[in-house]
């Protein structure tokens, strides 16, 4: 199919970057690169034990499991973020409702991913310890939730093309849109009356969502310092 030109869709190169960045890394160079970016050290060390298949270029069952564990960690983080926000965040009204609803969805994703990893015969990573540093409380809640949901969208999009299993791709496709719905709902709560364009909008990257590589996401999550131990 000679007419397929990824460049037309992948306006900022994010899709290509996601495809290549992780796939071309050997395990050793991945960690070296992760280490030299400073903020990534903690997360690389933390995720390292969970991601045995990260260096594999070609889709495989092993890589699928690695991707599931990566997704599980992000869902653990989101679920814990909302659970704590609903309990201790001092939220009221629609914000409290959002924290409760989104916690339910993320917890459902956690349960599904745990059970899938188990059924694929792999050890299920336990929930890490988190410290959200007050970012899920009061007037900080929506801003942080907005970032987390959009990270979730980019993370799933970054892995979708790397999954070997059709069933897992179907599952990822059915989760990524829920993360996108969450992101849009949070954007509306943040700024309901404003014209919805730009980086704080319903669709911060415009007509096409961006994909981010595992490496990039791990760096961003590492930088937050939210994961304090396993």
């Amino acid at each position: 199919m000679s007419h397929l030109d990824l460049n037309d869709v992948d306006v900022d190169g994010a899709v290509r970057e996601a495809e290549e960045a992780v796939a071309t890394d050997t395990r050793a160079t991945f960690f070296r690169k992760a280490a030299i970016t400073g903020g990534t050290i903690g997360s690389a060390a933390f995720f390292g034990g969970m991601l045995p298949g990260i260096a594999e270029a070609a889709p495989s069952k092993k890589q699928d499991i690695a991707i599931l564990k990566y997704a599980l960690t992000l869902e653990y983080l989101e679920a814990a973020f909302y659970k704590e926000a609903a309990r201790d965040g001092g939220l009221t009204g629609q914000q409290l409702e959002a924290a409760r609803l989104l916690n339910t969805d993320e917890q459902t994703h956690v349960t599904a991913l745990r059970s899938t990893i188990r059924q694929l015969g792999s050890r299920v990573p336990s929930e890490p310890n988190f410290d959200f540093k007050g970012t899920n409380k009061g007037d900080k809640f929506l801003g942080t939730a907005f970032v987390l949901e959009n990270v979730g969208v980019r993370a799933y999009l970054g892995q979708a093309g790397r999954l070997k299993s059709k069933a897992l791709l179907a599952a990822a496709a059915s989760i990524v849109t829920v993360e996108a719905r969450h992101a849009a709902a949070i954007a509306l709560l943040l700024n309901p009356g404003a014209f919805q364009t730009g980086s704080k909008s319903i669709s911060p990257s415009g007509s096409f969502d961006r994909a981010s590589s595992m490496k990039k996401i791990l760096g961003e999550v590492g930088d937050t310092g939210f994961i304090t131990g396993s």
Partner: protein
Amino acid sequence: LLDHIKLETLDTDGALRESAEAAGLDRSAFLKRGAVTGAGFIAGGVLFSGLASPAQAAISTRNRSKRNDVKIANYALTLEYLEADFYRQAVKNGAFANEQYRVFAALTFEHEAAHVKALRSLLGKAAVKSPTFDFGDTVTDPQKFGATAQVLEDTGVAAYAGQGPNILQKPVVQAALSIHSVEARHAAWIRYLNTGGLGETNRLPAPKAFDTPLSEKAVLSAVTKTGFITGS
């Protein structure tokens, strides 16, 4: 294999389980209702130009191929044509319940038009042309506009979810999904506006923890019933 993420639960209408045989049955069912033309394929009396010919009408859910990717992309393109023209006409008519609906329609039109352009570019000469549309009073009546937009966006989400796993080429999967999640953002937005906030459970921006995929057959059936597509 999978427990919570099971095809049986996700795939309520059999989108992912449709076998090649089933696709064959679909074709004959379509043939009973429609006629073959050189330019396209009549389904339920409506020319659905996303389907190139009866022999190629059904997207294979079993055998992934580059040729199948073209069918999927043209199917997506046809749905994007429909959405883009729906919002274009609504914006032109300006019949919105309030300013927030106008903003929603204007920005969503921009996104859908960009999706059309990208898919056309992706397909090159293989791209189907836009059908003609008649949206009736759904683009003039503010209430009907909101309700119809919600159905269209939710259907768009379900249609992409249904085809993602059928795509062979990984870059095409990525491209499709980067559109897919934007449709979900639109769906959440219009649901929020229609509900006036987070609202009752069945009208939430994200009504379920997993979005449900729809098969080509189910989507075509739903689109045909609207009568929005009037010709090629």
